[in-house]
């Protein structure tokens, strides 16, 4: 090797600006606390991207419809949170909600399921996963998520929400005056309904009937009408028409808006020869059916929630 030819080249390289830039880059990498810097940058970006949470509070309070909310900034924010903190399961749940309302149901289900399966104390992830899978027709999975959500005690849910940064941001919104425990109780009631309905739709009539009657006996449940319906409908499935008629009768007395309750009661009455009464019930059922947009009579009860 001819050093006389190499040395000038090396000398040339070491006398260039590029060398000092490289050296400085290495020195800086050693001097600067890169992790601290990185986390500061992340924090700032997250703060910058965070939209006001008032709309989400209004949505929960029923003052705003999902369609009236600009979901894009929320989605961008939750995506950013997840980019920096992939294990932030609350953010994933909220991302699922954004995706759902932005018309991307597949992504919404996927994110909601990931959130629900990864972080049990987050009741709302399981709740929403149950709702989405139920709406998607996957009843066994919906049942599974509903059971998962119902297993979490309200105290744990409350603690998980209050310790979540994202929930705290929502709670800091100026219009926040929501009673979390009341909302949680109503969500659990909806889950009982979902569980009963899912069991009914997979034709596990015994389980559905038992669940419905358990709910009817539960003092904390305010609206018992759907449970009387599913108890009655399950009895039809089991062939107990007399008991079914009596349960559907209670359901109708509670001023049910469920056309199926009228139709099933009409069917039973028709089978026992009370054609006139049956016809009038069918007519009522037809009238209600015209105003119903969903095949599931209690669809309005099952919507995505986070509070």
């Amino acid at each position, binding site marked *: 090797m001819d050093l006389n030819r190499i040395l000038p080249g090396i000398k040339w390289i070491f006398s260039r600006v*590029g060398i000092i830039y490289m050296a400085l880059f290495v020195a800086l990498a050693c001097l600067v606390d890169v992790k601290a810097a990185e986390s500061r940058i992340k924090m700032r970006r997250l703060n910058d991207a965070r939209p006001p949470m008032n709309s989400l509070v209004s949505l929960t309070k029923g003052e705003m419809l999902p369609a009236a909310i600009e979901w894009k900034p929320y989605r961008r924010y939750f995506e950013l949170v997840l980019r920096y903190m992939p294990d932030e399961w609350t953010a994933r749940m909220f991302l699922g909600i954004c995706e759902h309302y932005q018309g991307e149901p597949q992504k919404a289900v996927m994110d909601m399921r990931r959130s629900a399966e990864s972080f049990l104390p987050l009741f709302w992830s399981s709740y929403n996963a149950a709702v989405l899978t139920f709406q998607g027709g996957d009843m066994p999975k919906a049942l599974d998520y509903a059971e998962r959500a119902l297993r979490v005690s309200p105290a744990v849910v409350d603690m998980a929400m209050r310790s979540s940064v994202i929930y705290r941001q929502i709670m*800091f919104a100026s219009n926040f005056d929501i009673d979390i425990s009341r909302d949680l109780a109503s969500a659990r009631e909806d889950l009982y309904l979902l569980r009963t309905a899912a069991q009914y739709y997979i034709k596990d009539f015994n389980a559905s009937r038992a669940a419905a009657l358990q709910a009817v006996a539960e003092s904390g449940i305010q609206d018992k009408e759907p449970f009387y319906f599913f108890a009655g409908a399950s009895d039809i499935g089991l062939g107990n028409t007399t008991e079914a008629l009596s349960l559907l009768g209670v359901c109708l007395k509670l001023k049910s808006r469920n056309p199926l309750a009228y139709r099933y009661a009409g069917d039973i009455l028709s089978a026992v020869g009370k054609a006139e009464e049956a016809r009038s019930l069918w007519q009522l059922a037809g009238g209600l059916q015209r105003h119903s947009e969903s095949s599931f009579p209690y669809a309005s009860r099952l919507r995505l929630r986070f509070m």
Partner: protein
Amino acid sequence: MTRFVTTLMRREFFIFVILPFFVWMAAFWGYLSGQKMIVVDAVSYYEHIGFFTDNIIRGVYPLWDPSWSDGAPYNFFLRRIGEANPFYWLNAGLKMIGIPQVHAYLFFLTFYYFLALTAFWLIARILFRNRLVAGGAFLLLLFSGWGSQLFFNYIIIIFVPFIWFFYFIFAFAREGKKYQFLGCIFTLAVSLSTYIPFFFLTIIALFTGLFFIFFFREMLSFLKRLVVFTIQNKGLAVMCGFFLFIACVPAVDFYHESQQGEFVLPGRHAGDDKTPVVAVAMKSVVVGDLLAQGYFDRTFMDHASLIRGEFFISYFFFLACLITLVTPLTRKIFFLLANIIILGLISLTEASPLYKFLYDHIFFFRIMRMVSYFFWLAVLPMAVILVMEQVRAFIRDYTGHRLLLFFVVPAHLAFGAWALTREGVSWTAWIAVAGSMAFFSVILLGCRNKNLLFGILALAVIVQPFQLAKYVVANGEVRRGEVGRYHADVVKDFGYSREFIPTLKTESKDPLIRSFRDSVYYATRWFTDVFTLVPSEDRLSFTANKLYLIDTAVAYTQADSVFYDRLASAWRNHENIVFLARQEVPDDALRTSSGGALKAEPVGPSHPFVKVVGFDVNTLSLKVQLDRPRFLLWNDNYHSGWHVYINGREDKVLRADYAFKGVWLPAGSHDVLFRFATPWRYAMGYMSMIIFAVFLVMILVAARREGFLTLREDL
């Protein structure tokens, strides 16, 4: 001189400075015309300068602001702006000829920016001695994110004296003229007259220290020249020393004032138990560091979302930095890099060990908050100089080296390809990349036509940032009505009632949120207490009227919760009672006049026995006729700097109702005069203003006599 200026105007200065500046103005016209709103700290400085100049126009030297937190000493804000700076007279002059404050201020800002960039161009000319490179450096800085700082913060106020100081010092090192020496002293004095000259001092100290290390011989020769100049111009040197002393007095006075604890800055001082009150807690500093600001978030992406305050520059800058890595390493480059790196490390605060050390060991680092400003004040200008120095070396060493095209072209293509992968890069970025490639390629092909080179360079440097500036303007808030909370009426009329400003009420029960929303930035110590501890609605219902006549004065010994509750109740019910601190008042101040009513008697414009006969922000003059001794309560904050004169005889101003002020008036007719501060303080203020103006005139006269700049360039 005349010939020089004529030539300059005709050619170089016009082409390299004025013409591009007009293009810059066109890019930011949305802001400069007042259609878009200046925001954040820029608003505060707009208010301070507006308040100061409005008062000066009326012949009042403002030392008290009755509109700030129910009255506060104005010295803090004067120290922010450095009121002796004669360039504020431009703002005042424009208003005197009827131009509204918004437009007068924006014109002042534009002019000041022009002034700063002119100094930068002059520095570049001295350093490079090459018009092409100096012009390129000027264009790079002019068309960078610096311009949008004008509408976002106040650093232009610091930057102008700072950059002119460097121009004068470089020019003096080269030519040793009197006006250059005077210029150094003047710009130093302008900086010292503010309460935060520490950005300036840190940069100078670092620059000087490193200059000693890298250019020891040159430094010695400079010092020698300085000593010789001082010996030859003893009178001038003594005068300059005196001038610097005068310039320091207001800042020293302010620090003395801050030690007394009569005003507080809870917003920035929070969490710091160290004195003085102007000290900044570490957690506040961190908020203002380079990482927290996010200047660079959109440098290489999402250009359409750029907002004021964010950094942008033509991609030529980065490409030039990359291409010129092959240029030889010189002391000058090393020196500039060392400055940039050290200031950059300081700007990182917690993330760098250097800042932690400085914060713990150098007192003024506890006073500076927005350390990210080092980036705009020094790092960016030095980085531009550095890159253009490398470009100069590249032109010098590689003109005609066609072989390097094999590096330059692929490097540009690689950069362009990388930029393509970034989301939202403006289409003009490709013009910058293409312009840069053309510029370096033409050099490597041996072109020595400087006009062609400058044309290509201008294209590469201006077009992209012009579009980015347009985005910044488009994303700015539209101005609707007045800027900020300041109205010129505040300085004119006493206003018997205080304008009701709804408090930021919050439904949130969270104490953290409440404390954040209700925080006081700057106020007297006592006002801050009542603001925090007495319900706002009680305070506001009483202080909505500024003057009251009261019959009963009672003492309190301790300001505890019982006292605050009692005070709130008295305010709520407008009771005919005033509370005085037992330890501060003589016994005879605690008394009751006969015939007192249940309610305090408000004094309005139609009051039969109390008339306001004179008012400015520092004084209140009243004619009073009373049938019995009564306490005159003025719901404007107490400060020990207030004096009261009854029929020309000074009496003691009492701290009344904990935060406000008042005085017992005997029965009969009286002339009552409240005045803030001593005549000496006013004289000092006026004297400073005059001395600064005279000094500026001296510089201009000396520059005219000696020749402004006689350097000859190689181009």
